């Protein structure tokens, strides 16, 4: 037998125990049973080497590490290097002399014929002998491999799918961005036409065109902002940024901007302020996004407001918060819609013809500033949405 080569760490060599009694003989029937089970049975000698007890199973001769017959004790880690990491645990069991058998993890050894052997070791103290059993574990190996393989293939598919979605989102982002380009030109032309209008009818049509162009511009910005909310790149606005803006002025501007649309539908738009509300009403918000949040809420109210009804915008100072409540006299929000109301792409049914991003945009925008949005009235009582914004000092 060649002398033991070394790895980085020497095989575990615990203090030699007192000489155990000689191993009991293995009778021929037992030996035949063990051989049929393809189990290699070894006994640890008092010097830490191992000897084969029963006839060796056929698979042993196929291992590249067993070039010769082993009729003498040998260092086990020379033949099965994997056991180097598990033997300390087995040695503890053998030293104790009692206890349930312990099993190693599975490992794989190549054979001379290019196939693999999947093995498992068991340590067993029996009749004062330190026994080591090594058996083929092909069935366990196959079962575990099938489960893990499937899980990992699914994970790879999932990763690929995410990449595809990401690529499509980038494309969509580019398309939407490009769609916004001509809009500024259209708005400019409409404004020129507004100055040259010949009569009230011309003015009405041009104003309608401007209103729709403004809506489209806000919709595009909303979609781009929603993209930005998923984008962890440095270009996305940091949640730490705390801009401030005058909420009262912003509400007034939006109400004035939408008044023609309400008039066209035959609905009334009114603003109420709680007693003692002080101007300016600084809140943590960024001007253009806050404006779009309010436009979204008021356009929703307008869509569901019946003819000759009133939409009320109520401003309220609630200590550390400023609140805006938008109330309409429409059908309200069905209870089953409420849990998903502020999720993205909630469309259809009572919300036809919309992108499904308006209320989602409101929620993520307000939450970014530490505020929130809620639907505080349900079906049958009209729609009522309340937004809350943290009070702030003016941005220097």
């Amino acid at each position, binding site marked *: 037998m060649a002398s033991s080569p070394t790895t*980085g*760490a020497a095989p575990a060599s615990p203090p030699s125990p007192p000489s155990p009694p000689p191993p009991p003989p293995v009778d021929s029937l037992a030996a035949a049973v063990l051989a049929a089970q393809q189990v290699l049975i070894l006994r640890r000698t008092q010097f830490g080497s191992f000897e084969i007890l029963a006839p060796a199973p056929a698979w042993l001769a196929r291992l590249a590490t067993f070039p010769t017959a082993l009729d003498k004790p040998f260092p086990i880690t020379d033949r099965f290097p994997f056991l180097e990491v598990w033997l300390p645990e087995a040695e503890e069991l053998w030293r104790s002399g009692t206890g349930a058998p312990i099993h190693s993890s*599975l*490992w794989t050894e190549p054979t001379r014929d290019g196939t693999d052997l999947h093995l498992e070791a068991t340590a067993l103290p029996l009749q004062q002998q330190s026994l080591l059993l090594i058996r083929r574990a092909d069935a366990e*190996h196959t079962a575990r491999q099938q489960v893990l393989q499937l899980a*990992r293939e699914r994970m790879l598919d999932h990763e690929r799918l995410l990449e595809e979605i990401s690529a499509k989102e980038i494309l969509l982002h580019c398309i939407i961005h490009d769609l916004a380009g001509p809009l500024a030109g259209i708005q400019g032309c409409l404004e020129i036409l507004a100055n040259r209008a010949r009569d009230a009818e011309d003015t009405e049509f041009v104003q309608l065109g401007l209103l729709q162009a403004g809506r489209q511009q806000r919709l595009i910005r909303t979609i781009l902002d929603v993209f930005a909310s998923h984008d962890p790149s440095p270009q996305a606005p940091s949640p730490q940024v705390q801009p401030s803006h005058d909420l009262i002025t912003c509400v007034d501007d939006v109400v004035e901007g939408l008044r023609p649309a309400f008039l066209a539908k035959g609905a009334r738009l009114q603003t109420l302020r709680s007693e003692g509300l002080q101007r300016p009403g600084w809140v943590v918000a960024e001007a253009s996004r806050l404006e779009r949040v309010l436009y979204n809420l008021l356009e929703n109210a307008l869509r569901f407001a019946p003819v000759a009804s009133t939409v009320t915008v109520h401003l309220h100072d609630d200590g550390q918060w400023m609140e805006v409540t938008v109330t309409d006299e429409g059908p309200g929000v069905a209870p089953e819609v409420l849990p998903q109301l502020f999720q993205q792409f909630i469309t259809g049914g009572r919300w036809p013809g919309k992108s499904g991003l308006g209320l989602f945009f409101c929620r993520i925008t307000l939450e970014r500033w530490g505020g929130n949005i809620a639907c505080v009235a349900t079906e049958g009582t009209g729609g009522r949405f309340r937004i809350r914004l943290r009070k702030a000092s003016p941005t220097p």
Partner: protein
Amino acid sequence: MIQRKICLLGSFAVGKTSLAARFVDRPFSGRYLTTIGVRIDRKRLHLAGQDLTLLLWDMAGEDRFQRVEASYLRGSAGYLLVVDGTRRSTLDQALLLHERAQGLLGPIPYSLLLNKADLAKDWEISDADLSPFEGQGGPIVRTSAKTGDHVDEALHELAHRLLTP
């Protein structure tokens, strides 16, 4: 005969088993077959006038389903960190494994293998991404288990360092 243990570490499906197959002249299979536990191969080399046997421990890939057993690293003289160059996340995983191995084994020789170099059009790892590995003493090698590019060279280079006192 000198014998040294080398571990192949990395996330799942980065090509550790395919690289090990190349090291020992087994045929390359393009089919991904996940490794259970560890697979041990032997590679004999004659370097600097010495016979050397490398015990190649091809460890199961680490992910949310399976963790590399720290005890398996015991006794390693060096290790190969394997990354799939077409999956950025496998570099992060390699960095975690590298830190764990260095913590357990100390500053032993290692190499970082950016595998699947044949899939250049799907490459996701930039030079900037590799900055955590700069100045750590391990070479960074682009390998392809499929074509065999730089595979033997990477192993020989590490083996040389194992023999250098």
